């Protein structure tokens, strides 16, 4: 096992990109400003200098066409990592993603695979407003044929990026931009995290908090608050939405008998509803209370400094909701 050392989430993603591009010449990076500029969040810094314009390709602001070209490249021997600058803009690539990339493997009965990664930055926190702050991962998780990952730690950011690049399927990789500076132990060298394996982030007895991406950290902070209140919360991070590690989630609920699902996407028709329904179906006999869903409020996300923080839960509000569930008779 490689030795861990502390780097941040953004550097961990980059480490995976450098490693995979060195290992496999068919890996290319495409996106707006990913070339000489190194990405608007410096999330592609240094790639252009090492791999050149042939493999680190600046696209025009033509998300649909450029992503469609990435899909065609993936169907013909390349392994593109395509960046959509803001997660909100996946709406612009949806036809290429949902009607082409997701279906080619199936429609061709295995003749043609689409090994590509669509990476995109999501989440609130920078006062960017309704069209630059959403977490629309549920849109992609709805489409059979795609895999969807949401790393929450620096180690997973590296490991899941490496796994996504090596995967022969289209993988959508959602990175929360507020996590870029999060530091953590990240193994050096070749390291990947299997897609579809959840991780228990904190053990607990009284309630399971199933949390994704940045909400994992909110849940861990809430668990600290709950501990002070005498409630032992377990925090489970699915890490992948598709495939979803139902067994690990169910095992946690069997132990705690209560569950709260928290995610940064909209609550209506969202990931929290899907996971809650799955737990209700698979763990009904162990549940002592209905599964609670907490997602983003069902509103366009205001840029206002006073309103934006109200859209998704913080630790105190999450802890309050969890405590109410635990105390419910």
């Amino acid at each position, binding site marked *: 096992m490689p030795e861990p050392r502390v780097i941040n989430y953004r550097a961990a993603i980059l480490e995976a990109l450098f490693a995979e591009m060195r290992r496999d010449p068919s890996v290319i990076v495409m996106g707006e400003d990913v070339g000489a500029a190194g990405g608007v969040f410096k999330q592609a810094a240094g790639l252009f200098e090492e791999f050149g314009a042939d493999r680190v390709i600046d696209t025009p602001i033509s998300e649909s*066409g450029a992503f469609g070209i990435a899909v065609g490249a993936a169907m013909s021997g390349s392994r593109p990592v395509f960046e959509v600058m803001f997660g909100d803009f996946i709406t612009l690539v949806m036809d290429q993603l949902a009607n082409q990339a997701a279906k080619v493997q199936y*429609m061709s009965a295995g003749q043609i695979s689409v090994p590509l990664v669509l990476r995109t930055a999501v989440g609130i926190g920078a006062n960017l407003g309704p069209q630059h702050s959403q977490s629309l991962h549920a849109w992609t998780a709805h489409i059979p044929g795609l895999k969807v990952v949401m790393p929450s730690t620096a180690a997973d950011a590296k490991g899941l990026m490496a796994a996504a690049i090596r995967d022969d399927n289209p993988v959508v990789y959602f990175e929360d931009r507020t996590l870029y500076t999060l530091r953590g132990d990240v193994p050096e060298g070749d390291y990947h995290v299997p897609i579809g394996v959840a991780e228990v982030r904190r053990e607990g007895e009284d309630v399971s908090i199933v949390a994704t991406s940045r909400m994992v950290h909110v849940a861990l902070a809430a668990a600290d608050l709950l501990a002070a209140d005498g409630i032992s919360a377990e925090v489970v991070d699915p890490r992948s939405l598709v495939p979803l590690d139902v067994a690990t989630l169910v095992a946690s609920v069997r132990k705690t008998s209560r569950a709260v699902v928290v995610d940064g996407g909209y609550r209506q028709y969202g990931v929290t509803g899907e996971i809650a329904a799955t737990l209700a179906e698979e763990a009904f006999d162990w549940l002592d209370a209905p599964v609670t869903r907490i997602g983003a409020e069902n509103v366009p996300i205001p840029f206002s400094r006073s309103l934006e923080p109200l859209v998704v839960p913080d630790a105190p509000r999450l802890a309050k909701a969890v405590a109410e569930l635990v105390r419910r008779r």
Partner: protein
Amino acid sequence: MSDSAKQKRKKAAAAAPPLPAAEQSLALLRQMQLIRAFEEKLRSLFSAGLVPGLLHLCAGQEAVAVGVCSELGAADVIASNHRGHGHCLAKGASVNRTMAEVLGRRSGYGLGRSGTLHLFDSVNGNLGTNGIVGGGIPLAAGAALSAKRRGRGEVAACFFGDGALNQGLMFEVLNMAAIWKLPAIFICENNGYGEFTAIEDVTAGLNPVARGTVFDIPSEAVDGMDVLAVREAAARAVARGRAGEGPSFLVCTTYRYGGHHVGDSQSYKDAEEVREWKEKDPILKLSRRLEAEGVASAERIAALEAEVQAEVLAAVEAANAEALPTADDLGRFLYA
């Protein structure tokens, strides 16, 4: 179609190119005959209720598929559209497996699950027919990007109708193909109608060639009813792609004898228009030249015709002997 539009479309006809060698000329003819026979058989099967889904036929447009594909090699790639049987067969697809797929049989290219709109043939470099108008355009450009990176001089061609001229996606992709000098060939089969609507009713600027030249892409109008004219234009485009000179844009003026799909009443067309175009039929045109220039007798041409009819009938019989996909097939190949 308006008179002025008809005039403009007639102007696309150019001086007749020379016939290739006899064997090659006959191969072009046979390929067009095969596509016509394949689709005419499908039309009758559809009318008998034996083809699931919708069926979009290319009768009248065979010269474009055959002319372009005759200039492509095995390692070159195509992306097709919803009217794609001709493209698939011209690129080398098995008649049996194509027929089986359209008829929904398990021996088809997609296990009988995908049908006419989603026909993939990786062995022959076919990235699929496509249910989204213009959907194949970026896929071919992507294949051209892969080809450019490999550096072996391969090209990628895509076929789309005049309906796709008004998809924003096409403009995005043409722009990138031009700035990245991708070895891509964009082939617009201008058959005068996007679904049920005449091109001039929904399209500004009635010279589609300008859609390529605006990006400084070498672009030309081609007589899409003449397989030899298409072939010559395709040869120029392929040569540019192989030489690293970037993309080409061909607007092949052609005609769809049938409706948008089988069963379309075609109330928007007049019979005279159809009759005029059928006089320019690409199969008839090449047949007449082969006879006039002493390359093939009428008997030889009729024998080829009989051959392809037999091949198509055998494909239908083979497909009918095959099973439909079973419940076990429903979830297969969802992921690699």
